[in-house]
């Protein structure tokens, strides 16, 4: 799931903990219906349909992966044509210098390599989960906890209403805090 916008330094939030994905999915959908603003949700593993329940717009990562793959493909073609046909032509097994079929494996490999590495890098940058990041999120979200985080944007946040909602879905624990992530 996507992390907070980098521009927001401090946000008042309420976090509710659940022990299964179904409750999390249901409460996320209902919270949005009831006008709460969802800051984020956390789960130990990706949950199908969660993006719809939280109302995320489509990720742009696919375009980045596509562009990176295309870059890898073009690099592979240029690299091989230039080295084996122009810069240092070598006769290998009597084949033409510019033997397209022979370039295919490297074209494939570089496409996959560029696409994979660049999208992982961009993914970490976009959700600010860089490998060296020492940020602590919530206790247990990488283990067995499912967490819904509601944003308390302004004074209109109805604590009573939120508490009722949490109770309805059997929240295990509710906590409030500032300076989220």
């Amino acid at each position, binding site marked *: 799931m996507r992390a907070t916008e980098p521009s927001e330094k401090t946000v008042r939030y309420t976090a509710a903990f659940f022990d299964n994905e*179904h409750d999390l*999915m*249901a409460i996320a959908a209902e919270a949005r219906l009831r006008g709460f603003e969802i800051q984020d949700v956390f789960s130990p593993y990706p949950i*199908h*349909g969660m993006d719809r329940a939280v109302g995320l717009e*489509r990720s742009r990562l*696919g375009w980045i992966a*596509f562009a990176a793959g295309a870059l890898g493909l073009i690099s592979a073609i240029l690299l091989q044509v230039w080295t084996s046909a122009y810069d240092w032509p070598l006769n290998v*097994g*009597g084949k033409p210098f510019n*033997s397209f*079929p*022979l370039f*295919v*494996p490297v074209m*494939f490999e570089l496409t996959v390599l560029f696409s994979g590495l660049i999208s992982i890098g961009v993914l970490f940058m976009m959700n600010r989960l860089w490998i060296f990041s020492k940020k602590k999120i919530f206790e247990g979200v990488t283990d067995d906890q499912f967490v819904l985080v509601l944003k308390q944007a302004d004074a209109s946040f109805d604590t009573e209403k939120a508490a009722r909602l949490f109770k309805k879905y059997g929240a295990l624990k509710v906590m409030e805090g500032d300076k989220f992530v």
Partner: protein
Amino acid sequence: MAKNELTNGMERNVLIGLLVLGAVGGVAGLMSSDRFWFSFLQNSLFVLTIALGAVLFVAFKSVSNAGWATVFRRVPEAMMAYVPIGGLLLLLVFFGRNTLYPWTNPAMETHGADLQLGFKHLWLSTSFFFGRMVAFLAIWCGLIYGIRKASFQQDADGSVEHTRKRKIYSSIFIVVFGVTFSLASFDWIMSLEPMFYSTIFGFYLIAGTLTSSAAAITLLVIWLKQRGHLPAVGDKHMHYLGQLVMGFATFWAYMWISQYLLIYYANLPEETIYYYRRTGTTGWFTFFIVNLFLNWVIPFVMLLPRQVKMNAKWMVAACSIALVGHWLDFYTMIFPAFFGSPMISYVDIALLAGSIALFLLVFFRSLGAKGMVPRNDPYLEESVEHEHLEIVYSLKAGTMAD
């Protein structure tokens, strides 16, 4: 008497009409055309591999404990029912062996190919060849029977034991199929040109089989869903099916280049002759390139975006293209061995229409005879999306007919 009427009278009549057309065209072709047996082999294999791919689909799912496809599992299970019938049809090739397979001619040596046959001489003898064919088909049919039976019995008594049994049959099927289908493809297609050999040929065909059966399953699921027969199939399933079609198409391309590249590299006459025949003339070269586009380039590019996989129209287009590609793949495997230039005659059309009609008739009959959803499968809840759980509960409670 069928339990569910999946097709209305007119559709059934159209299918029967196409089947008759296929039979009439086939008989006419047998009498008058030298293409008949090649076309017969091509179209029988085209439909039979789709049915075999459906078995693999179910077997993979069962072995990997995957739950997602359970809700429409009856669709590939009904496709499997075609294998015994398609297998029997394919055995008719026995009567065309002298036209199809040059190695049946005792005078083959005189063609300048004293066949470094040796081992091949023993392997490609008529009795052994057709003995193998019967054995392969019988083994497949036996395992298919086991897989299907366990599934239907679970509907009746709900015992988890059947899931375990299906898993055992599936494991055996996957291992046996990998070996037998490889050998079968060497026999049925590669031996059309007995001098040529490529060890990856079987896997190349398995890749095509997987792509086309995933595409066929997708088309049938979409058709059934739009008729309201599979209400619990949602975006998730279409997304996964789209990924499978795209992934298998890419696997096909990988196998394609693996075969082409090694032959291109090694440049041995007995191997390059295969590609020489398929790229040497403008006509065949066009088919050669079109084949690559239909099987991989177009489906791959079309299915890249996520939304497309959940859009029925786009999926129908992409899967149809992949299926046409699979048909053309067999065409470029079989015909260039004997014909100097590509041509499509009435025999091909009639046999194609007839095979597809027969396949669909068997499919609808088999699907209609049993429940549309494996209601007692332990993976059923897991396989549907949250919003469709109600449908599953009412199916289980018996308050809703399937």
